[in-house]
């Protein structure tokens, strides 16, 4: 649905994007993650036809953002990192205006307005001035504006930035519903835990370059040279560290208050053998579990914190 081909963009002598290439299949949520200044907003603005790349192209639904911007804007809803609301307009007037601007007429417009206001939960706020709303409510207005013409593709630029945890969770629920409706969503963020259980795919960028992209599990698997295991004992035992270091494929053993965490590079059979040895050695084992890598771990592992 979204194909980005070798995008390049410079601002003066600053290379904002260097050969950015990735794709987002239809009906998936793709997390576009990277530190501040990595080129996320620039990429999204190019996809939204608001900026022009110096080289490369991108296609949305088969249309080029460079040469067919009018076809592209019909397909996409863009939620920028600013509200873009008008002073002196209420929520319903603002949305009514955008609905009209997108060509919705008469009862179809009123119906769509009612549906979208209901969907984003703005019912009690419709007659308030947009500029008087809280940050969370403004983000809902912004999302409603992006959805008003029922687009197939959604580009969301830092949608949860500045929201409190409750508003963030509510926004995440809305995005999940949108994904279930079959929309293709590209969501940029540097707050990684908000994407962890939301995205099917990730694209990690830093300093204008794509470091990795693909399904979240594939990226995890590719990055993970081994797995992290945690052993908890009934009571602390100094011998555990020495025992673990003597075993094959074990590394980076760290003792904790009631056990140890360590890295294991062997396969699953070898892991079973290790656990068997542990039990046979007489350690009072209370729990053994594999530690999951989060997007944040992957991100920190991939990026070097380069400033752009």
């Amino acid at each position, binding site marked *: 649905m979204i194909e980005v081909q070798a995008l390049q963009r410079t601002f003066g002598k600053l290379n904002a994007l260097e050969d950015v290439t990735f794709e987002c299949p239809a009906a998936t949520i793709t997390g576009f993650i990277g530190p501040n200044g990595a080129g996320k907003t620039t990429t999204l603005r190019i996809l939204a036809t608001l900026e022009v790349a110096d080289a490369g192209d991108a296609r949305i639904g088969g249309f080029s953002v460079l040469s067919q911007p009018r076809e592209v*804007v019909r397909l996409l809803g863009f939620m920028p990192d600013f509200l873009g609301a008008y002073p002196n307009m209420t929520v319903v007037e603002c949305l*009514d205006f955008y609905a009209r601007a997108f060509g919705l007429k008469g009862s179809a417009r009123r119906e769509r307005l009612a549906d979208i206001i209901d969907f984003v939960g703005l019912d009690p706020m419709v007659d308030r001035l947009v500029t008087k709303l809280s940050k969370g409510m403004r983000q809902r207005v912004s999302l409603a504006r992006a959805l008003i013409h029922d687009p197939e593709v959604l580009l969301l630029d830092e949608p949860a930035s500045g929201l409190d945890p409750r508003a963030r969770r509510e926004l995440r629920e809305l995005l999940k519903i949108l994904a279930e409706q079959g929309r293709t969503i590209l969501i940029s963020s540097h707050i990684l835990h908000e994407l962890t259980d939301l995205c099917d795919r990730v694209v990690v960028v830093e300093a204008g370059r794509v470091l990795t992209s693909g399904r979240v599990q594939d990226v995890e698997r590719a990055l993970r040279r081994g797995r992290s295991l945690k052993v908890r004992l009934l009571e602390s035992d100094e011998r555990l560290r020495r025992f673990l270091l003597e075993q094959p494929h074990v590394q980076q053993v760290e003792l904790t208050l009631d056990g140890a965490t360590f890295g294991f590079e062997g396969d699953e059979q070898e892991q079973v053998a290790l656990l068997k040895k542990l039990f046979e050695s007489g350690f009072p084992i209370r729990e053994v579990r594999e530690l999951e890598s989060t997007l944040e771990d992957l991100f920190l592992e991939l990026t070097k914190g380069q400033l752009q």
Partner: protein
Amino acid sequence: MSKEEPRSFANLVELPDFISPLTIKELRQGTRAHSAFSFCFGTLLLGTVILFLVQWRDQSESSGSTVLGLLWILGFCVNVLLIPTLALQSVTREIESGTHELLLLTGASGWNLSVGKIASPLALAIVNLILILPFATFAYFQRGVSLEDIFFIELELLLLSTFAITGAIFLGCIGLHRTTRWMARIGAGIFGLFFAGYYLGRGFNLMRFGEETSPWLNIAPTLILTVSCVPVFLAAAQGRLGRTGSFDTPQLRLVAVLVQQVLLGVLIWSSQYHLVSLSPRSESLVLVTSCLIVAHFVLAALCFCCGPLEPAKRSIAVFPARVSRALLLGPGVHRGMLLCLAMAGETLFVLMLLGNSRPTGSVHLSFGILLSIFFLVGNPLWAAILGLLGGRRVAPVAGILFGLLVNWIAILLAAVSPQADPSPIGMLSPFTNDLDQGGDLSWPGFAALFVVFAALLRLIRTERETRERSRLRQELARPSTEAAS
């Protein structure tokens, strides 16, 4: 939510679908703005004060004319100076807040945006004109004015409001940055002062409208000014706001010049037909003529002093051949030459008429020929200087030199001529405001001033960009403690 009966929102005023969404938005915003009510209230209050003052101080038979003159000043100040300021702010706010970009995502064209922006200020201007009407009717009953005078005052104010509002929208499109924005406002203020100087003079002199010539002839220069400049302003604004490019609208400007010539011809023919002397109104004709010369200068200056807005870069990216025209040479050498030819012809035409209507014809004619030569060679010369110097940073300097050159040579010519007439000097002097000295013929001088303004603008922008780049370079060079941690 039942599909059969869509929900209606109690507080949403339903407006018909055939009205442009942007017009609806502007009207909704405009009706809630405090300034709209302030202007209307102010007009009512000042109108009442004017009536009381005139009633108290002026017991003559022409007191109606005095009232009308003061109402003209009031209407001009609100409709032509204050309301366009609102329009200008509205456009700059739109660009600054990013809503302009969101509008482009709806598929709205530059024309939609620029025309939509007119709706609210123009509606306010019309309301203001309606509010003036009762006071003007009172002036009619005081004697000294006719209903025809009132009609022409209202019509001329409406035309001037349209001209000023579209001009303000055009100016509002110039910049994204605060400095640029303020410079544009100052420029508009200077423009407004020159503009107001001519028109307010009529009110302060308490000129009897329609007394000297036919009222249609009286209003004709304003009509021609509006008809020829409004499309140019709108086209430039739509180019700037839309996806198509920059201020580069030479075809329309050429058409506007030709239309203006035809209208001038009609005006002159009809005045000859009615055996009305042109001389008292000749300065108005030159004012109109020189307005487009100013427009040409302004657009040419803006073409190279302001980079295009982001979405506008698309056309440059898709059609790389446009880069030189849109960013460097402004209107383009070939089309610019055509425009210059048209303007030169027009200038000659008007100056010949002036020469025939005054005894010092030879000076006017020779000056006209000289001016035409300058206009003919001016644009290619300018382009050549730009090409030679190569950088956009020096382009405004070339513009200033060009403007000064025209000024100096004209003054030299006038000084050495034994038949020297002050009018040609006045025509090129930006600071002359004496009507007898051709003060209202000072528009080309103002154009030179605008080029200075554009140069300053460009220099400030260039300096800021240089500072910003060096700051970024330093930031990149410095190892980040944040990254290290």
